């Protein structure tokens, strides 16, 4: 079976700083894969490289067999990215924002109205989509952006801290959306999060990153059993030596 994501020996150096050192992991199609780690561990750097935003110093990234480093243009046709704490254009309405993004994300012959209608259904913002994005709460904005990331049913959706800073209701809504979308449309998801409970709830498999190294990888249930821990937070602490 062809893998959705194959990352091999990925390194990234910013000047004197080694942000990522020999990271490798694989993601199966239709899987939700979580990258977990503290601030500065290298999660966002990994994600940015997978999304063709920055180039690795060395290593390879294949997305559904497509070389993300050598053929970034082709890779961009099958991925969708939600950056951490990103915003929408404040003076566009939610609807206009979705329409604009749909036009950029889809190819010729795609009915934009259908794509936007799909996004409207995902985010559940109803009539508020007619309002300018600057009037939205943080949670509403995030729901809009998650809907944008999923509306075209990309082969790979990369979500960086999708529920960071949201209240329980909005975070719950977003987790439900992601889970349902993977189930209904077979979208593969790579997500990063600080929230271990979220990761445990959402992800089929997780990888721990610490100081630029991938230190552990596996299914949440399996990892908890292996380290005799109540939750992933405890596993992480034991793996990196905090506990």
């Amino acid at each position, binding site marked *: 079976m062809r893998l959705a994501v194959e990352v091999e020996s990925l390194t*990234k150096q*910013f000047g004197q*700083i080694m*942000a990522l050192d020999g990271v490798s992991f694989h993601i199966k199609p239709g899987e939700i894969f979580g990258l977990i780690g503290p*601030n*500065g*561990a*290298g*999660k*966002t*750097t990994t994600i*940015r490289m997978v*999304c*063709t*935003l*920055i*180039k690795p110093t060395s290593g390879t990234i294949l997305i559904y067999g497509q070389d993300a480093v050598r053929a970034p*243009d082709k890779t*961009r*046709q099958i*991925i*969708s*990215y*939600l*950056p*951490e*704490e*990103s*915003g*929408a*254009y404040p003076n566009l309405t939610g609807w206009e924002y979705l329409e604009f*993004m749909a036009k*950029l*994300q889809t*190819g010729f012959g795609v009915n934009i109205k259908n794509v936007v209608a799909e996004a409207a259904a995902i985010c559940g913002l109803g009539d508020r989509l007619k309002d300018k994005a600057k009037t939205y709460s943080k949670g509403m904005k995030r729901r809009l952006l998650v809907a944008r990331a999923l509306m075209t049913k990309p082969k790979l959706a990369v979500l960086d801290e999708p529920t960071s800073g949201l209240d329980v209701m909005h975070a719950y809504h977003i987790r439900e959306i992601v889970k349902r979308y993977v189930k209904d449309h077979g979208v593969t998801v790579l997500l990063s999060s600080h929230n271990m409970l979220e990761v445990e709830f959402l992800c089929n498999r997780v990888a721990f990153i610490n100081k630029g190294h991938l230190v552990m990888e596996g299914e949440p249930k399996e990892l908890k059993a292996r380290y005799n821990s109540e939750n992933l937070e405890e596993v992480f602490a034991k793996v990196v030596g905090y506990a």
Partner: protein
Amino acid sequence: MLKGFTSILVKELKELMRDPKILIGMIVLPLVMFPVLGLVMGYAVETAQSEARHANLVIVDNDGGEWSSTFINYVNNSMNVVIINNTTPQHVVDQGLLYKNNSTMLMLVPQGFSENLTRHVSGEYNITARVTMYGVFNAGGGIFSGIGGASAIGLVEGFNRLVAPNLVVASQSSIIKGEIQEGVDSSILGSLLLTQSIALPITIMIMLTYAMQIAATSVAMEKEEKTLETLLTMPVDRFSILMGKVSSTVIVAGVAAVTVLVGYNYMLGSMTAGIAGSIGSGVNLVELGLVPSMSGYLLLGISLFFTLLSALALAVVMSAFSENVRGAQALVGYIYPLIFLPSMALMYLDIQSLPLVLQGVFYAIPYSHPSIASKAVVTGDYLTVILGIVYVLAFTVVIMYVASRLFATEKILTAKLRLSKDNKKQAD
């Protein structure tokens, strides 16, 4: 004392003074810019005074009497005088005698000058002698360009103080583009000159700085809100993203350029209507070279447009080196001296009067060109305007190329202009 005021004040001062962008923008730049501006203005005044001291005055003596000799001798003590007898001012201009004698001023002592003076000193105080000063009006000159003519008028006053009050009355006329314009007071034209020298450069300064702030904010907002990151992962050509961004600001710039020209034209129209009224209805101000022709306006508009375009492109490039709106605005602020210095200097100076090196510096700064063009279109020097447009266009192409390279690589996200060691930040 308000509770906590001192602590908040000290904290704010520390925050502000430790930000190198603010330190450079608010303290270092003014410390450099104003002394340089002072030097330029000092040079302008010195040059104008020196020109006035060494200026030749051509006197057409159509009287040839005793008093005219006395008067001319008096003037000759303070200025270098070239005397031409029995001719008309227009003939002097037509024969190029002003140019040959390195002069921009002509004084006509008419027939009957000595007779009138004799009658005045004999007690007929209602009889006065007249002289007419003809100054070459240079629409491209700086605001000190009329200083030579003023000193010649001063000498007439000096002569009156020496002999008798109100003995000689001086009237002023102008020589505009080789034509004598009787009764056109150069001081009235001076007000027009002043407007041209000051109003447009100030408007250009405001427009350029405002447009650059808008463009820089636009890119920085995308970076701050991370919408740029999203856009860069879309299956669209990155050059399209850049061009879309620049093109939108170009449209705004185009509208701004037209607005400035319409306003400028209206202002000149209001001013010149008054001047035309004072010098007679048969005079065409465009033909006189007092206001730009239609083609002049067109060239000025093109010059403004491309200068704006280059400024906007540069603002986009610079804002790529900042992480947020505040940083982008501070970075763009470093360009302002390149806008302010030439614009302010050219209010006071005719660029042609500057030493060659300074001329080169001014021509090399793209933001000088609308100011240079605003004077050149009035004098009909379209070649200077066209060459300026070509230069600014070439500069813009280079900047756009740099911008496209930035957008094509990860530098658009990772490039940072580091002004201090503590700006280093590890990627997550």
